[in-house]
């Protein structure tokens, strides 16, 4: 496909000048993006980095002409694609450019695809919207696009629906859709944030390869400086709608000019960069032990609804958590790590034995279970979902105290103020509702709530995954401080190796419901033995643009299914101590 | 032995209304509509407003009526003889009458048909009408043939009665005694009502359940020249208001349910439409029953007070003047009606005085049951207001027909407004208003005498009247009936309210005497004799 002549002199495909985007409100126009200018050249990757609220996503939507008008619109400046001024283009004309000359990949592959339309139809529709070719040809091109994004079994995928694909596959489909018409500009808005590390790695590799092959200019919107380092040629750092710094990537990482950039880079967790952990006592006191724990979910079928198969979410796991330590569970989505957490706090039934302070969960009566709640708390991944949106923060944090009948109402309120203070929120937060807070603040609210009962163990189920790096760092600091002061234990569940490396005393790696490797932080990160562990580590993006990027060897196929017919199950992995308590599956 | 032979001069039938100027025209199809579906055309079973006259057109009985009148005339019987003692009736059948299936009707068919109605297996609602026939008591229970009916030869049927009964000839004209062919009944079984075969002027040509019935002219009908129509179509399931709209639009010839109240003033106010309206009396009385076996209506003063409290003119105004005030059980057009009886006056003060006399000066609270279709609840409310004026608080219970009938039969209902459920006479004889609804026989658990009124003297009087069979003593007999009903009014188990007038509409193209459209016997239309003018 030939491009209309661009200004041949400088290869600029997209020129943004003094862009201003504003939201309409009762108080008049509120600027969301101000004075943004940049040029994007053919074949170049420009990263726009920044944290939530920096205006990076608004910028991408402004370029696409997808701002939620009339509330939010471009109020100044220009966006020129080749010779076309986009800001004043009527919707009809914009339509013909969108998807054809500029296209976009979104963060959430789970929701960005239409769940009731087959992949094939969504792809061909995108093609035919701009190029009214016959159905058969559109299909052939869709297939070619799927092959280009290296999706396995592309013919079959055409017939499938989004929910039948994994997150990584869906993101590949999104990319296929975006590049099917060979656009001049591809905007990737946090394309890998929602993906597992290994998949993230593959997708990033893919985008880079495609860019190289097609010469597309890419705008990469991300908060992850690791991704920036690996992908971008140039970086624009944004904060609160304004540009903080623009630089070539190596320069930015080596010599950041602005304080904010430095802060941002400092906040990025790096493997090997974690602070030293306080030593645990030589004979630690055991708080929790999993003994041969399995969790299986029945799948019913047939006339009488008999159990026909089971999802083996957790298989024969034995692990201990000691007082005052942080044990991390790592692994990718679906490996069973969250299920283990849920089994521990009693949200899913389990087989085997889970003991807390010497008492088996299964032997507790209802009073005992209620008492146990005081010792075990959980902080979920998505704070918005974990907080009842219809309650004020004060009520939410007070709730555990009310449930367990601790203190008078006045004492409870005082305690809520204390807790808010402890997690760094003002007392005035009590009267407000969760949606009025930012993601990081909400997670602090969740932590404050978990702390209310002074538990002995807090389960953090991907608790920092959704947070901006700087906030993530602060939350991790908070957890560390709490542990130091209160001596509590953490079961830290994460897929992010860098974060895990920062907080853990011991680490267990899970794969398909079983632990494949377990040991101290030093053992695991210093001497990873199991191939899966090695793979996880290799996939982590490193915020160092000069580190050689090796393409990750791709797995032969998808991760095997944990569903087994009744009476069958996966082979049981045997752990072997290779010295110093470093257990590895053989 | 007294012998009576009636002439069967067919010319007499043609001269049914000498005033009629036009000569009937043959041919055409008439469309009639009804709201309710036609349940059955089995003459032994059908007992509804809408199928009554259709059955009359498909079947015939030994006796018949002059069209548009209440005058008896022979039907399938050419002549009949009554024995001196009135206990034996001999009918000579008209020769050559054929069923729709082509077979000639014989005396055996008559005998078989009567036995069929009486047989309990048939479950005929008309069984009780035949109680005067000898052997009824046994046959009505075990289903054995009646000893009182026989066919000495193919053209003669002899009835023996266990008691003289002046209504017997009317019973022979009743749908239930119509003649059916044995082989067709046996072939159809219980479905005979949907596949009727008779001797009548029309035969059923098509029956689309829930939609329409088409009746075709029986070319072999035994009265030459009758019927005039080639066919008539009955469409069912039509809301009266809509049926009237269709009639106004010329799509329907006769809206069978008449003119709905909401349209009445509109129609009568428009001379062009009013010209198509036919008015006629009906053998109908609307009344309030009062349960005489329970306080407070066990006191005759109370019942009389109720009679005096009802403002009948107002009630008639509420139903748009479509009735005349009634002062006795019998309607004015019924023989035996007491013309010089003034009835209870509308006298609120007098009614209060009577209540006081009964020791109920402060009034009392009671219930009035009513069937829940318009205009009955409205009438009940008008009654309620009248009763309130004399201190009686009557709470209305507006229920489905079956529930009201049940409450009445069980004697649970202190008062019932009869509208919608009772009483259109089965046949034009004063006795028809007495037996089951005022006599002791009906005053039993489950009986239709909702007042539970039982006066042995009057029962005896009624029996005497019914055993007066000599036509020469007809006047005397009517006097006896008149006395009976006067006796009833003395005891006042009922408060008669009005006699409904029937207003019906017909399309301008329809011909035939108005009386045919408000035929007191062939309600609502006498299909056999109406015709289309063009």
């Amino acid at each position: 496909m030939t491009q209309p002549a661009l200004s041949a002199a400088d290869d600029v495909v997209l020129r943004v000048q003094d862009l201003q985007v504003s939201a309409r409100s009762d108080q008049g126009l509120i600027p969301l993006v101000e004075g943004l200018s940049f040029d994007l050249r053919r074949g170049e990757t420009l990263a726009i980095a920044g944290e939530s609220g920096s205006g990076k996503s608004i910028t991408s939507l402004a370029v696409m002409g997808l701002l939620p008008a009339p509330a939010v619109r471009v109020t100044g400046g220009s966006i020129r694609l080749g010779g076309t001024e986009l800001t004043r283009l009527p919707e009809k004309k914009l339509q013909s450019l969108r998807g054809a000359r500029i296209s976009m990949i979104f963060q959430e592959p789970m929701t960005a695809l239409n769940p009731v339309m087959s992949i094939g139809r969504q792809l061909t529709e995108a093609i035919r919207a701009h190029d009214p070719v016959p159905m058969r040809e559109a299909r052939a091109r869709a297939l070619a696009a799927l092959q280009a994004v290296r999706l396995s079994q592309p013919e079959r995928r055409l017939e499938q629906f989004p929910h039948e694909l994994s997150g990584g596959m869906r993101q590949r489909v999104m990319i296929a859709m975006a590049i099917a018409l060979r656009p001049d500009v591809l905007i990737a808005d946090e394309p890998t944030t929602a993906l597992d590390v290994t998949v993230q790695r593959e997708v990033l590799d893919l985008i880079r390869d495609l860019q190289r092959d097609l010469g597309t200019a890419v705008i990469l919107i991300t908060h992850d400086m690791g991704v920036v380092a690996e992908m971008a040629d140039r970086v624009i750092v944004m904060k609160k709608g304004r540009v903080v710094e623009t630089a070539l990537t190596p320069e930015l990482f080596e010599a950041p000019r602005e304080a904010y950039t430095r802060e941002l880079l400092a906040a990025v967790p790096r493997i090997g960069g974690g602070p030293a952990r306080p030593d645990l006592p030589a004979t630690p006191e055991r708080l929790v032990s999993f003994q041969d724990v399995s969790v299986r979910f029945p799948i019913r079928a047939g006339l009488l609804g008999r159990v026909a198969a089971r999802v083996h979410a957790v298989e024969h796991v034995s692990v201990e958590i000691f007082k005052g330590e942080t044990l991390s569970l790592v692994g990718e989505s679906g490996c069973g790590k969250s299920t283990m957490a849920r089994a521990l706090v009693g949200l899913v039934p389990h087989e085997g034995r889970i003991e807390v302070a010497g008492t088996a969960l299964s032997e507790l009566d209802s009073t005992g279970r209620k008492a146990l709640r005081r010792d075990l708390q959980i902080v979920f991944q998505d704070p918005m979902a974990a907080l009842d949106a219809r309650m004020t923060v004060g009520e939410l944090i007070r709730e555990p105290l009310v449930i367990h009948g601790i203190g008078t109402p006045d004492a409870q309120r005082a305690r809520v103020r204390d807790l808010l203070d402890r997690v760094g929120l003002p007392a005035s937060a009590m009267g407000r509702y969760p949606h009025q807070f930012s993601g990081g603040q909400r997670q602090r609210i969740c932590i404050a709530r978990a702390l209310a009962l002074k538990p002995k163990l807090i389960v953090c189920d991907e608790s920092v995954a959704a947070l901006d790096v700087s906030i993530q760092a602060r939350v991790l600091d908070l957890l560390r401080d709490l542990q130091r002061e209160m001596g509590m234990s953490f079961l830290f569940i994460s897929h992010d190796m860098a974060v895990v490396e920062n907080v853990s005393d011991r680490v267990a790696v899970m794969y398909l419901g079983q632990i494949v490797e377990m040991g101290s932080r030093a053992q695991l990160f210093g001497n990873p033995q199991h191939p899966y562990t090695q793979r996880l580590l290799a996939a982590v993006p490193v915020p160092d643009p000069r580190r050689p990027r090796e393409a990750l060897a791709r797995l032969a196929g998808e991760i095997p299914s944990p569903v087994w017919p009744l009476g069958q199950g996966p082979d049981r992995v045997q752990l072997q101590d290779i010295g110093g308590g470093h257990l590895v599956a053989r | 032995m007294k012998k009576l032979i009636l002439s069967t001069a067919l010319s007499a039938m043609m001269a049914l209304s000498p005033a009629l100027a036009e000569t009937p025209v043959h041919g055409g199809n008439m469309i009639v509509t009804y709201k309710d579906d036609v349940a059955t055309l089995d003459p032994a079973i059908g007992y509804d407003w809408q199928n009554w006259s259709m059955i009359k057109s498909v079947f015939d009985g030994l006796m018949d009526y002059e069209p548009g009148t209440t005058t008896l005339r022979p039907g399938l019987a050419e002549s009949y003889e009554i024995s001196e003692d009135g206990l034996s009736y001999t009918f000579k059948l008209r020769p050559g009458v054929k069923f729709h299936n082509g077979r000639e009707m014989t005396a055996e068919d008559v005998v078989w048909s009567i036995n069929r109605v009486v047989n309990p297996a048939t479950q005929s609602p008309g069984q009780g009408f035949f109680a005067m026939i000898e052997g009824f008591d046994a046959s009505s229970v075990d289903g054995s043939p009646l000893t009182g009916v026989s066919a000495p030869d193919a053209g003669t049927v002899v009835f023996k009665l266990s008691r003289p009964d002046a209504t017997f000839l009317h019973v022979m004209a009743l749908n239930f005694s119509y003649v059916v062919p044995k082989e067709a009944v046996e072939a159809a079984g219980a479905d005979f009502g949907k596949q009727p075969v008779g001797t009548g002027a029309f035969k059923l040509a098509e029956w689309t359940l829930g939609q329409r019935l088409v009746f075709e002219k029986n070319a072999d009908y035994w009265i030459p020249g009758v019927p005039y129509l080639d066919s008539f179509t009955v469409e069912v399931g039509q809301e009266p208001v809509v049926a009237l709209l269709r009639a106004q639009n010329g799509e329907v010839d006769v809206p069978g349910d008449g003119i709905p109240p909401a349209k009445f003033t509109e129609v009568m106010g428009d001379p062009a439409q009013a010209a198509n309206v036919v008015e006629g009396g009906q053998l109908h009385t609307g009344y309030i029953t009062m349960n005489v076996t329970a306080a407070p209506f066990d006191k005759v003063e109370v019942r009389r007070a109720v009679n005096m409290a009802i403002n009948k003119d107002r009630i008639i105004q509420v139903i748009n003047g479509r009735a005349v005030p009634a002062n006795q059980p019998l309607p004015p057009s019924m023989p035996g009606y007491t013309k010089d009886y003034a009835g209870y006056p509308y006298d609120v003060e007098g009614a209060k005085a009577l209540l006081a006399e009964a020791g109920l000066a402060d009034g009392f609270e009671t219930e009035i049951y009513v069937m829940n279709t318009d205009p009955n609840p409205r009438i009940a409310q008008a009654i309620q207001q009248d009763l309130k004026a004399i201190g009686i608080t009557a709470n209305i219970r507006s229920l489905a027909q079956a529930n009201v009938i049940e409450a009445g039969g069980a004697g649970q209902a202190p008062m019932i407004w009869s509208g919608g459920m009772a009483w259109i006479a089965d046949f034009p004889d004063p006795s028809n208003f007495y037996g089951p609804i005022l006599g002791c026989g009906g005053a039993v658990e489950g009986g239709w005498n909702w007042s539970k009124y039982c006066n042995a003297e009057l029962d005896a009087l009624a029996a005497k009247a019914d055993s007066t069979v000599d036509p020469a003593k007809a006047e005397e007999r009517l006097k006896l009936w008149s006395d009976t009903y006067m006796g009833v009014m003395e005891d006042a188990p009922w408060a008669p309210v009005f006699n409904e007038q029937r207003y019906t509409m017909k399309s301008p193209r329809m011909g035939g005497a108005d009386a045919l459209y408000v035929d007191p016997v062939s309600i609502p239309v006498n299909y056999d004799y109406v015709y289309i003018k063009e």
Partner: protein
Amino acid sequence: MSVAAPTSPEPGTQPGPQPDPQQAGPISAAPSVLRRLLSRKLALFGLFIILICVGGAVFARWLAPFDPAEQFFDGLTIEGSPMPPGPVYWFGTDLLGRDLLSRLLYGAQTSLIIGIVANGAALLIGTLVGVTAGYFRGLIGAGLMRFTDLMMAFPALLLAICLAAIFQPSLWIVAMVIACVNWVQTARVVYTQTSSLAERDFIAAEKTLGAGHGRILFRHILPHLMPTLIVWGTLGISTTVLLEATLSFLGVGVQPPTPSWGNIIFENQTWFQAAPWLVFIPGAVILLLALAFNLVGDALRDILDPTQQGRD
């Protein structure tokens, strides 16, 4: 601003007028809900209509120009037709010559009880069944939902007729019958919603805090069902008021001459051409009441939803 694009900046922690922390908590919720309700024009209009209806019902005895059951001699024409609205009978008369305005005022007593109490009871039963089945699942849940299916398949009018014939009719029987008949749809909808709510993280969070079932149900699930219940409740008002009329007609419940808005329409519906005021005035009144409840319900739904705050 009504756009909730996921990429729009977070509201963050802009300083704003904050309630006194001491006052924070559910204790202060009720008065502020009322205050905020009153600050909305449409809701105020709705409340005003409801107040008029309730006032009309309560003070009918003093407000009504005539006795609602009195059949006036001059209330009918000579031909027996009702009188159109005029100086004496403002809303005209009905088929028995009674004053329509007085009947509407008295009818409000019945209809409000039906619209609010019966409809409310149906909502309550439906919610109880739906929530129990959706939250507890298991055998009880399955059993309840099968029963709901059964009731859904059962002809409601037949039930009504039978109850009518069995019981002494009264307003409370109608209310009961309506509740028995109308809870089914609510139960279905509530069931679906509760099952999905029960899967949400914040309910899991509550469980891990040790909250009992009662607390989870009443403090967490129920508030989230409110929008649905408000919608079904307000939509149900007019349908139940009309259903009452059908039931009266079948002999359950209020018997003539006690007026209700529904039975005024039913008694007179064939007359809508000859005497349109007899159908359209009560029809408009029912509609207005339902609409008023809907306006208040909509406002209430927004007010109870904290995420909608500041968008009045």
